[in-house]
């Protein structure tokens, strides 16, 4: 059995799965249930200035019958009294000393408020702090949350205040509502943050009720932009993560990966791109804490199969495989192949290629089943047919290099080689 224990800046947890700062980590009741289920740690729902929430608060995007492919909220930070939160944090730590307890913070925008809040939180015995520079709604209007994360200078200033007071590790959570997370990332690393976490939610309108014509979530005939998360945002999160783990400065600190992690596979992908652990929210809001079992089990089995003994054996292993377009090997070529024994004749590959790609699939009409074959000379190897095929391993991409040697775009141009494929 592989060892899936995690050590993030000295904050230890039995597995790399933390619950992200959100409703699931809002109070002792939930957190104890999560720990009992086996979660490695939690980031307590953001503490800070007093707020009031509205009703309703969530909305979702369903896809082809699947619910909550994307999830959206307009909730603010914790609306419970600070002293109750602090008391419950201390109790949870006492009951589950082996789990990670990180507390998310968003103080009013002055040094004194931050210092007071940090002091109080540290007194609970918490293991770390996460600075909420990400919340895209409600708090930004008060110059907090994403308003801080979107401005590298303000972010730098706040982190400096925090570092003056903090005695435990500090993680800065970044907002994706910027063209690049790197400037803020660099700025807070310079200011001394011990780690980064990303991404927070993405501003969104999830959909409009076609009867009332008001978007969701509905609050008395109005709505607001919410924070989008869930499986739909994972690819975007992975991209932002990579920009941080590839940057010379930001890659010097550990990163906690967030954004649509629902399965052990998602977690592995975040870690392969350099996250030291992951945080989960939407998946538990959809299915409850019990999903931790497969998150651990699947990770364990995969590590065993691949021969990785510890998380560090694979964290970051894929970071260097993402390169610049102009470095790609132009002589690499592959062609689709349809396995006729597996083909169920649905024709999806054909119509996709015919209507939207390179007309590289031949159709031989039959009754009721047509036969589809690849026209090798026409196939540019785009993968579309393989992507739309509903049968596993029915369409495979077979390597047919144009030439044995590597050549990139710059060299190609220099040699004046031909440009158009078709």
């Amino acid at each position, binding site marked *: 059995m592989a060892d899936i224990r995690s050590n993030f800046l000295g904050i230890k947890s039995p597995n790399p799965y933390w619950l992200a700062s959100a409703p699931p980590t809002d109070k002792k009741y939930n957190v104890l249930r999560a720990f009992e289920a086996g979660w490695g740690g939690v980031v307590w729902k953001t503490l800070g200035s007093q707020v009031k929430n509205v009703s309703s608060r969530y909305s979702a995007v369903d896809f082809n*019958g699947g619910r909550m492919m994307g999830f959206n909220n307009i909730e603010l930070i914790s609306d419970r009294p600070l002293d109750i939160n602090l008391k419950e944090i201390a109790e949870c730590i006492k009951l589950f000393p082996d789990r990670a307890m990180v507390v998310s913070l968003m103080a009013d925008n002055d040094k004194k408020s931050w210092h007071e809040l940090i002091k109080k939180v540290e007194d609970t015995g918490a293991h770390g702090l996460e600075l909420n520079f990400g919340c895209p709604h409600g708090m930004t209007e008060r110059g907090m949350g994403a308003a801080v994360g979107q401005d590298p200078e303000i972010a730098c200033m706040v982190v400096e205040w925090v570092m003056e007071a903090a005695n435990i590790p500090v993680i800065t959570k970044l907002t994706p509502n910027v063209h690049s997370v790197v400037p803020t990332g660099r700025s807070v690393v310079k200011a001394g943050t011990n780690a980064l976490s990303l991404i927070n939610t993405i501003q969104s309108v999830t959909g409009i009720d076609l009867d009332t014509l008001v978007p969701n979530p509905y609050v008395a005939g109005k709505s607001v932009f919410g924070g989008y998360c869930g499986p739909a945002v994972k690819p975007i999160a992975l991209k932002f993560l990579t920009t941080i783990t590839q940057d010379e400065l930001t890659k010097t600190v550990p990163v906690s990966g967030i954004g649509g992690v629902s399965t052990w596979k998602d977690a592995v992908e975040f870690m392969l791109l350099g996250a030291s652990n992951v945080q989960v929210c939407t998946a538990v809001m959809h299915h409850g804490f019990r999903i931790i079992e497969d998150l651990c089990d699947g990770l364990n089995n995969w590590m065993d199969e691949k021969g990785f003994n510890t998380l560090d054996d694979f964290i970051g292993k894929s970071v260097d495989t993402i390169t610049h377009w102009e470095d790609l090997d132009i002589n690499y070529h592959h062609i689709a192949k349809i396995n006729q024994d597996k083909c169920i004749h649905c024709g999806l590959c054909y119509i996709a290629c015919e209507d939207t790609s390179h007309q590289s699939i031949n159709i031989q009409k039959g009754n009721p089943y047509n036969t589809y074959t690849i026209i090798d000379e026409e196939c540019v190897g785009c993968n579309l047919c393989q992507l739309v095929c509903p049968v596993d391993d029915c369409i495979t991409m077979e390597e047919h290099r144009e030439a044995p040697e590597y050549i990139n775009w710059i060299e190609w141009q220099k040699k004046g080689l031909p440009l158009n494929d078709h």
Partner: protein
Amino acid sequence: MIESNKLSEKQYQENFSDIHPPYESSTAAKVDANRCLFCYDAPCMKSCPTSIDVPKFIKQIATENIKGSAKTIFSSNIMGTGCSKVCPVEKLCEGACVYNLLEEEPIPIAKLQRYSTEIAMEKNWKLFERKKSVGKKVAIVGAGPAGLSCAHALSREGIDCTIYEKESKGGGLMTYGIAAYKVTPQFCEDEVNYILSIGGIEIKYNQELGKDITLAQLKKEYDAVYLAIGVGVARQLAIPGEKLEGVVDAISFIYDIRDKGYSSVPVGDKVAVIGMGMTAIDAATQAKRLGAKEVTMLYRRTEDEMPCTKHELDIAMLDGCEVVWLAAPQKIKGSQGKVKQLVCSKMKLGEPDASGRRSPVDTGETFTLDVDMVIKAAGQTPFEKIIKKYKLDNKNGKISINENCATNIKGVFAGGDAVNGGKEVVDAVQAGKDGAFSILKYLGVKN
């Protein structure tokens, strides 16, 4: 003993409830709709005689465009609701579903089709608009699936249609022949009314061609005539004892169940059903459901040659009907004018016949069954008399038509069971469409 009222009202209701219940909720329909792969040049569509665009109507359920979905179905098959209940889908659309090739359950196409079209009927959506009258009149004989489908297609193009129907209700064998657990009389009536709601179609009931009206009259008064008279009486067995009390014809037996009500239809204790087509299955299962103790189905050939589908045979078997293969009725014995025994020849399979199926050969051995009722379901015979009377070219009573659905008499077209000798409702619907298309060409309304 042959008697009616064998069961309690509650038992009848249970026995004759819908064998394929509809979806309970829109969510349930969407779960199945979302499983559909949306195949291109879809095998299901190609396997539907009316070429319903199945992937399209299913996608429309998934996108909650139910009106669009119903219109997609009805555009190809105006009896789309009825067909969703009576089509042998396991050998048509669902049988061709690509999921079968993955050894997975096919998409429940019929159930989804029923979902959209029943909503359309319930809400009485007007999905088709009749074009302005073009001043042409067509007479249609027979208000069965072929006749109705032809009339609807013609009316859409602005033709004024009059249907002459010998019975007092429309729907043809849909109304008079198909088992009660598939469609109810009320449904059949609703379906006919929904089809007629386009306007421009008048049905004259209790008007029989050859009795109340003549072909010459119709030809004179109308610009074209479409014959959709179906097939007639059950084929006679031509064996001794056929006149005994307790020998009944499957179609009238089935119709009585529909028409008179379950408790009024007499059924024996030990029933023999002769034949292995859809009619035989319907007769056997319904005899059982009416309270017969033993039902034995007899067929001259084997399971490999049977005309019904495996699915239908399973329904009968699950109802507890027995099957004896390779058995041909030889004579029916009785006493005091009532059926007592059925003597059968044991058969074996010989050389393939014209249909390509191996034909049964008498072995000379016989066996005897004690029975008190014999239901004849060995196919139906065409209305030969009237067809010959009007000198319509025919093959054993099946009206001959050319590629334009035209008979040998100018301006007279035909289709449905009357031409094909008896297939499914869906084939008759397609025949009606084809007929309408040809008539429109003939009248110069479309080319």
